[in-house]
């Protein structure tokens, strides 16, 4: 389990990261969400020890991270990240050797990973000649080649086509299945929603929301959609209910104070007045939640 505990980092007068705390449990995939400049990259760089936090700590299984543990965390920096003028296999072998593999071991593992990501034919090509998506594949290989105990990935899905997104997701899932915690940042909220066990939303350097996708949705306002036989104009007079949208028999309401009893009263009144065709809870999408908390 990777724990980020109240890390803070300022640049000049602005707090880029302000007392950020969250955990990435064993075998869980955590999505790190936030707009540009929200502090995601700074937080990840502090986890990796590239930047020193002004205060706060990062722990691995309860002990503060040191060089020995950090060297075993697979890391993918934001955009680029490989030698542009060196062949892809050669530099991945170099990285694997820095991780402590022998030349033979390193070549075998890297060739296997490159084949798997469809780069088998391009092993000897210079990185700068590869497409953005293929460079990104090289990047993720660089992150996983050292048999990492945890993965910290900054925008791993950016620039990938749908097939590559699937390959990448599969690779990450293999790691979580083996107990490796994975933290990744992304702007693609649907992807985060689909892949992640939990989500951390960062805004202006602070954690504004965190939890599972379900939990986040629960935190939103209590909204119901109601469809009745006739005009639903009477809903406006109902106590504890405010109408967001009214269109003949269809009405979207927000229950003030998230009072479940007010919702029950609304349903009872509707039944009393005639047929009820629909009465359903409306859950906001992750992007709606995100817009709300990051507003």
């Amino acid at each position: 389990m990777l724990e980020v505990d109240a890390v803070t980092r300022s640049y000049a007068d602005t707090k880029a990261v302000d007392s950020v705390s969250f955990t990435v449990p064993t075998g869980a995939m955590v999505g790190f969400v936030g707009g540009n400049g929200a502090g995601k990259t700074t937080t990840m760089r502090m986890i990796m020890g590239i930047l020193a936090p002004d205060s706060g700590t990062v722990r691995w299984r309860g002990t503060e991270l040191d060089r020995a543990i950090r060297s075993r965390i697979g890391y993918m920096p934001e955009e680029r990240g490989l030698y542009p003028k060196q062949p892809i296999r050669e530099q991945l072998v170099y990285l694997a050797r820095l991780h402590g593999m022998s030349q033979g071991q390193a070549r075998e593992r890297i060739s296997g990973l490159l084949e798997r990501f469809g780069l088998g034919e391009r092993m000897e090509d210079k990185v700068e000649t590869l497409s953005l998506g293929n460079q990104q594949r090289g990047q993720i290989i660089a992150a996983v080649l050292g048999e990492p105990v945890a993965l910290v990935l900054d925008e791993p899905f950016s620039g990938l086509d749908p097939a590559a997104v699937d390959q990448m997701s599969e690779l990450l899932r293999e790691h979580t299945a083996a107990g490796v915690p994975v933290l990744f940042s992304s702007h693609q909220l649907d992807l985060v929603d689909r892949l992640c066990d939990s989500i951390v939303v960062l805004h202006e350097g602070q954690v504004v929301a965190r939890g599972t996708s379900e939990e986040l949705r629960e935190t939103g306002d209590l909204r119901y959609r109601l469809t009745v036989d006739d005009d639903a104009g009477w809903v406006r007079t109902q106590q504890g209910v405010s109408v967001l949208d009214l269109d003949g028999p269809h009405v979207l309401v927000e229950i003030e104070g998230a009072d479940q009893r007010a919702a029950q009263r609304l349903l009872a009144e509707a039944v009393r007045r005639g047929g009820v065709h629909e009465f359903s809870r409306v859950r906001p999408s992750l992007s709606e939640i995100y817009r709300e908390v990051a507003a």
Partner: protein
Amino acid sequence: MSVVQSRPRRAGGEAPAEARALTPDSRPWALVAAREIRVKLTDRNFLISTGITLLLILGLLGLQAFIAAREEAPEYTVAVSSSQGEVLVEQSESVLASQEDGASVTARTVADPVAARELVGEGDVDAALVQRENTWTLLSDGGPPGELARSVADAVRTSALSANAEAAGTSVADLMSGAQLDEQDVSGEDDAERVVQIVAGIVFGLLFYMASLTYGISIANSVVEEKQSRIVEILAAVIPVRALLTGKVLGNTLLAFGQMALIVGVSLIGLSFTEFDRYLPMMTEPLLWYLPFFVAGFVALACMWAAAGALASRTEDLQSTTLPLTLSLVMIFVVALNLDGVARTIGSFVPVMSTILMPMRLLEGGVSWWEPLAAFVATLAFSYLTITVGSSLYRRALMQTQGRVSLRQAMRLPE
């Protein structure tokens, strides 16, 4: 906060096994150095420029040998029409033979002075020596070669003196007694040796200057390449930044030293095939000192070049961050070549400048045994300082990706 545990996942074949925990390489700097060397040795531009340099040196030496071979000792022919003329030509031959350049002269006897003159006109002989009444005349077409004219004049004068002395009842030796002027060069040098010293000294200095500049810029470039591509973040997570710097400096030092040794080696082997081979022994001691000075001077600047690379955040910034170093190197080189007297002696103890001046002074001789040693120790001390400052700047500025870092900002950054 609450999080759910991992959902059931499809386990993959490549999942990492913690039991096989890897430990980072214990000598990462060696891997870094090996990469620097491999990248350079597979760089076509580097290979081509090294090849061209070697070809130029071999070409120059070959040209020198070719010209030397063509400059065969001249063999003059002088037409004479009398036996006295023949004797005089024989005497002038012995004068020429006593000189270094090995010129020789032979007589060609013809019937009369007219025939001799004709041969000169036709270009069959270099000159003709004819006697009219009591006067000897050297005929030539456009002036005789200087050494031939001098040797013939010498022979004529000696012969006349000898005849006149005999007539006066004395001898040439008596007449010339005390008339000889001897010359002595107290410097104990010959001119050619001096030229060789100067040329060799400048070549040593130039090699250091070029290596320091080109490899320095190459170090700065490789640092900013890592920074710009963000791979430095991946590297720094696996190995200490210090190991990265050590490997980089070590790799480039080995490359620079290897290239210099190759150029010097090829030059010396080439020289041994030319007439300059007699100067090789006098270069041994200066060369043995030059090598450690080269390495120490190079390393002294290498970390500073790395720091200059770390202060930049894009390749475009390099020009301004490396400018102070480039200027210093140019100044050191120019000043070193223009110093003389006491200033030059002092300069030969100043770190980095000593790499240029001390080997020069050693080539010229008259340097006490302790002088190169003291200068070398000073360079080592200076290297220690620049390595400390350079690596500190490097570590501070390396992870700053928001634009160029000024020296002052870098000093204030935490490590």
